[in-house]
């Protein structure tokens, strides 16, 4: 038994590392325990075929605040960008692709009215997302037993909405709970524009475009603007290199990171967390135990429901986290041709989503535990920005594909995987004719694989669906949104806590600040 740390952080995901760096800077003796042999959690670069590497989880850096990058001095710790502020191209089978670059929408035959409408829409959404981003940087206010800080936070949120101006305040309250299908149809004439916007609203969720909450998840994604990103970025060396920089920052501030040190359970004595037991049987003690794992894994797997109150357990069981996104990694002998796309734009974020109706139809089978017949896809060719990921002249495609439910009927057998991969390839062929013949190796990771690779329950990226009932003071569950769990000394710092998932890092930072504040006031 060792007792040399104040704080144990379970999991070296990006939130765990941010939390570690923040606490270490405040003078805490922090140890981060990671089951894998690399830090980063779902921000990881992995070799999937000899000579070919890819970001095996998240493949863009999009929401991690630029201010946090500077605060942690990640550049000093090795973070370099291969590409920044990528535009999005909505690929069309007929070659009439739509390119969205910030507020600018461009396509050969896109009408001036829609171009204008998109520019206005972009600015309007950015103003709403900025309000949300403001709330993301603070702990969520408690509504019951609130203190002055909670009331101030609530006041700030109200004030931020009010200062949008009368018309925009009304509009955000009108659309906040709407579905993206209706909103996009209301704002745009062009089918490509509608579906490109809608795709961004459902990406990483289990919702279709007609589901309420999808406007909220679109706003959620667009907080990226407020965090200083003009579009997705790609680190040199993939997301694993970003994680390495975070780990270096945490280590430089005094945190210890132990790899291949998986935590088997959290030790609870008389309602207080006193430490953890590793897979190896080793016991580590600390007065503060912070979990970067998702709420279900933490509370059911590591703590055990028997140590908790039944009502709380019921809420944790109710967290919706049904993984729906798969990843496909392709090793290519040559760059695929994309007819109609300017070669200079091949390195953009590419989206394959035919229409609103097509998106709806792609989602429908998932309700019945089937995968999409015609999946929708977000992909990038990172080797165009960072050739180090593949042998000279060769390329890699990293694709996020929906909808592939974690609980597929009959399970994800080899046959089911082959069938789904064939359907993805068929979709890719429509915009990249002949791509099949370029593939030398491929890897499909469906939600159960994501669950086992990253330890996320349900294989859900965000550690829980992004929706109004699971955000802010409802995340992870109502009454426990301020990172402290109902076991003394146990905290949650991952994406399952406020403000949520994506590679954002704010859950980790807010959690650390809450712990520091609590000690200061005690």
């Amino acid at each position, binding site marked *: 038994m060792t007792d040399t740390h104040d704080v144990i952080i379970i999991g070296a995901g990006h939130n765990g590392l941010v939390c570690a760096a923040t606490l270490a800077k405040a003078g805490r003796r922090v140890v981060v325990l990671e089951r894998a042999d690399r830090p980063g959690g779902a921000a990881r670069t992995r070799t999937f075929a000899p000579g070919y590497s890819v970001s095996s989880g998240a493949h863009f850096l999009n929401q991690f605040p630029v201010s946090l990058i500077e605060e942690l001095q990640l550049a000093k710790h090795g973070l370099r960008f291969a590409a920044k502020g990528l535009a999005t191209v909505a690929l069309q089978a007929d070659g009439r692709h739509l390119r969205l670059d910030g507020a600018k929408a461009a396509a050969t035959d896109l009408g001036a009215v829609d171009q204008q409408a998109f520019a206005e829409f972009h600015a309007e959404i950015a103003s709403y997302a900025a309000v949300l981003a403001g709330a993301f940087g603070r702990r969520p206010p408690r509504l019951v037993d609130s203190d002055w800080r909670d009331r101030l936070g609530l006041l700030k949120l109200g004030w931020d909405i009010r200062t949008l101006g009368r018309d925009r305040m009304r509009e955000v309250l009108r659309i906040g709970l709407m579905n993206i299908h209706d909103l996009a149809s209301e704002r745009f004439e062009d089918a490509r524009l509608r579906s490109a916007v809608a795709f961004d609203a459902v990406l990483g969720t289990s919702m279709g475009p007609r589901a309420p909450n999808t406007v909220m998840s679109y706003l959620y994604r667009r907080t990226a603007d407020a965090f200083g990103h003009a579009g997705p970025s790609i680190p040199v060396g993939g997301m694993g290199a970003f994680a390495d920089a975070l780990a270096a920052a945490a280590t430089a501030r005094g945190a210890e990171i132990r790899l291949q040190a998986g935590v088997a359970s959290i030790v609870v004595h008389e*309602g207080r967390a006193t430490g953890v037991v590793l897979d190896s049987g080793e016991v580590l003690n600390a007065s503060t135990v912070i979990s970067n794992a998702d709420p279900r894994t933490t509370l*059911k797997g590591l703590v*055990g*429901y*028997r*140590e*908790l*109150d*039944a*009502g*709380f*357990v*019921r809420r944790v*069981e109710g967290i919706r986290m049904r993984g729906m996104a798969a990843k496909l990694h392709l090793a290519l002998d040559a760059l695929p041709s994309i007819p109609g796309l300017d070669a200079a734009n091949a390195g953009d974020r590419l989206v394959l989503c035919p229409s609103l109706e097509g998106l709806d139809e792609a989602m429908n089978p998932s309700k019945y535990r089937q995968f999409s017949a015609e999946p929708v896809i977000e992909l990038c060719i990172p080797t165009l920005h960072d050739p180090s990921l593949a042998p000279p002249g060769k390329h890699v495609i990293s694709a996020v594909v929906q909808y592939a439910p974690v609980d597929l009927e009959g399970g994800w057998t080899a046959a089911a995987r082959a069938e789904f991969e064939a359907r993805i390839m068929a979709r890719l062929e429509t915009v990249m004719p002949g791509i099949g013949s370029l593939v030398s190796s491929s890897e499909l990771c469906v939600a159960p694989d994501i669950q086992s690779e990253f330890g996320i329950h349900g294989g859900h990226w965000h550690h829980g669906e992004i929706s109004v009932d699971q955000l802010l003071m409802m995340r992870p569950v109502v009454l426990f949104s301020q990172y402290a769990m*109902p076991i003394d000394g146990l905290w949650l710092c991952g994406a399952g806590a406020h403000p949520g998932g994506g590679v954002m890092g704010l859950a980790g930072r807010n959690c650390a600040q809450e712990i520091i504040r609590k000690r200061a006031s005690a």
Partner: protein
Amino acid sequence: MNTLATRPAHDPRAMLETPFHPRIAAANGLQSWYNWKGYVSAERLDQIEFEYFAIRNATAVFDISPMTKYRIEGPDSEAFLNRLFTRDVRKIREGRVGYGVWCDDAGQVQDDGTLFHTGPDLWRLCSQERCLDWLHWSALGYDVRITDETASVAALAVQGPTSCSTLRAMGLSGIETLKPFELRSFPFHDGELMVSRTGFTGDLGYEIWTSTALALPLWDALFAAGEHFLIKPIGSAALNIARIEAGFIMAGADFVPAEQGVRHGRSRSPFELGLDWLVDFDKGQFTGRRALLAERASGSRYRFVKLDVEGNKPATNSFIFGAGQRKVVGTVTSAVWCPTAKSNVAMASLDMPYGRPGEELWAEIYYMRELKWTRVMARAKVMETPVFDPPRRRQTPAPRF
């Protein structure tokens, strides 16, 4: 599989009948019925005084079949129940019965009930409220099976000084050696009777549990055997007098079950119901433990007291005033004139710190005589023990009357 009683769709009657209904309906001279959790139940069959004195002087029979009953079984049943209850159920050995409460996360009482340890890894939980959903949520992480057996178990409370003699005469030999809160099975016809020395009267008494098929044979055998011991069927009204006299609280009357409360602050913790003895912090985790520890550290909001009220007018629904008669410090939850103890008892929930043992308070009593309402302020003294607690309640072997 839940065996809830159901009616055919074409049957217009909205209420269920208990297995004893044919006998009770025949005996119910007043035809005064009420709805107990969906079952037609007798409120009174005869003059309430006759029924009450059957409890205290002879043998009273009350049909408790509508009481909610859950069968809990499986290797984790004890661990599950220990997480549910605030008391340590491991101390309820096989063949014993325990009274207890269970709370929500906020440490507020959901319900009280009796727990029968009927066999290895086999229990019966009897409660006032339906709580199958809460039991299922509490069972997450436990290997346990929970079945609602309300409709498949027939049960009678047989209470009063001659109850033991009645059961002996019925052929339950050795019943007098059954200790309070103990249970034992007796062969009966082609099945068996489970008898527990429990009840809601504070008197010598038993509860008999059997299959619905044996309900009417049980009734007939019981009344044949009890004829010389002045056996009498009773309704809920007489029972209510007896339970207040004995100082027993009732869900829905003396506290709001936490899951049913809508308004903030209306529910009560075990401490606020005077049930401190049912909370065991040393047994490990149970739902509400964290909140109750916090309450113990910071103090309770309310105190539950038994009051000895001067005069003979029940302090029903009264406000309780502090010593100066100026400030309302609480309200009465149950009140009745107790005929055996000859005292006017009220149970009340008071704001802290009022209600210390022996403290003198005032009850504001309104009563009406021929449409004229009168208000009196009556002295109300906080009592430490119930007014009715006879030795026969606890004596083993049970005394013969």
